[in-house]
């Protein structure tokens, strides 16, 4: 195991668990309808504290590419990712479309168009990652030559402005829907800041981590301050969307990302469970939302508190996706659904 990548693997696994936990909370809230602004507001605080997970997952992708291919990507880079990332996205998307098709072909085709092509489902992050691949190929050389500060500042202004106007202006949302055919959450401008920052972190990985290990209070303070600011907006009911692409999430997610890398680097002994989980993370991201609503109904029969519901549902969600992946990995045909899972390749050897 590459020591340098240990913390990234751990963080990917933790981000994956965080995503399943957040969606378990959503299912709990939909079932029990707790008072999220009154006596049960700790749920809201907890839920928003985990929203960094998807931006972190997306940043990890770009950090690894930027770190592993500092002077441009290899031949066949995109093709490999189409095979291992885009094909599972399409197949799981078709499966979700079928689940929501009410057994009718016309509805199935309609859903497939919305989900697979337009990205209108929780797998939308794959379209974001693919835009990152293309941005990396197009802008990599330019960003490499440039001083990091101007691109980081410009991308922050662009992402923040886009997300801010999008959140507050209905006419703008209608305009975006008219000019951008895909789901508006997939548009790269909203994620551009993460891309640029992750690019530079990947290029200067060691230097960045050494700097923030020495000055760990910087991401700690920015994480706390940005979280408090975000929660103020939520609890004042100014901006109540429970989603990761919020304008007040940009600094929070980045701070948690850096802080987590610094802290996880201090763990000397690799945690094999988390590393294995990290290998399954992509498939878990893609599939857990397909089963969670059903598993939530099952969890209701054994859990009677918020914490027991969320813990049991998270465990069931993770276990179901992992079990599903292990079975699918057995055949060459069904392997297309999972993409490459390193832990299972190692198991087969």
């Amino acid at each position, binding site marked *: 195991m590459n020591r340098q990548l240990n913390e990234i693997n751990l963080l990917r696994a933790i981000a994956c668990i965080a995503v399943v936990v957040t969606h378990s909370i959503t299912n709990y809230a*939909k079932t029990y309808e707790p008072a999220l602004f009154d006596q049960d507001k700790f749920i*809201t605080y907890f839920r928003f504290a985990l929203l960094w997970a998807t931006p972190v997952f997306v940043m990890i992708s770009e950090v690894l590419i930027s770190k592993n291919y500092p002077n441009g990507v290899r031949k066949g880079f995109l093709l490999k990712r189409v095979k291992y990332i885009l094909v599972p996205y399409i197949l799981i998307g078709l499966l979700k479309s079928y689940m929501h098709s009410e057994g009718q072909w016309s509805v199935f085709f309609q859903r497939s168009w919305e989900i697979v092509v337009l990205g209108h*489902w*929780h797998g939308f992050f794959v379209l974001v990652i693919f835009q990152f691949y293309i941005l990396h190929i197009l802008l990599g050389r330019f960003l490499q030559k440039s001083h990091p500060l101007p691109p980081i500042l410009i991308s922050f202004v662009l992402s923040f402005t886009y997300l801010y106007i999008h959140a507050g202006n209905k006419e703008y949302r209608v305009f975006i829907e008219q000019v951008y055919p895909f789901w508006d959450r997939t548009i790269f401008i909203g994620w551009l800041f993460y891309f640029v920052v992750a690019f530079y972190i990947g290029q200067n990985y060691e230097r960045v981590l050494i700097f923030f290990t020495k000055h760990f209070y910087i991401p700690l303070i920015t994480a706390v301050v940005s979280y408090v600011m975000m929660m103020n907006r939520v609890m004042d009911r100014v901006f109540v*969307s*429970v*989603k990761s692409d919020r304008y007040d999430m940009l600094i929070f997610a980045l701070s948690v990302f850096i802080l987590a890398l610094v802290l996880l680097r201090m763990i000397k002994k690799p945690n094999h469970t988390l590393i294995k989980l990290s290998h399954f993370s992509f498939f878990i991201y893609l599939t857990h*939302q397909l089963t969670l609503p059903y598993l939530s109904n099952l969890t209701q029969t054994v859990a009677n508190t918020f914490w027991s519901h969320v813990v049991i549902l998270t465990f069931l969600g993770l276990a179901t996706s992992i079990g599903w992946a292990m079975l699918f990995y057995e055949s060459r045909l069904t392997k297309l659904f999972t993409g490459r899972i390193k832990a299972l390749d190692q198991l087969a050897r």
Partner: protein
Amino acid sequence: MIDVRKALFGYSEWRWIFFFNKESWLSRKSKNGWVHKKRHSGKSGMALLLGPLFRSQNAPDPPPPPPTPPPELVWEDEV
């Protein structure tokens, strides 16, 4: 001798640029006898423009807007 203040403000149609409504200090001074005819509506142009900010004390309060329920959390991950 020309009363400059009277010439500038007293009978000028532009008076509303400087004073928002009849409760202004100019109106209070009018009791001393150097100002002018009353406006027909009792409200200057600026008062109409900036009504909510500088509402005349004589004007009745507008009816309160109907109560709207506070927004609830929007779960955007359930798609």
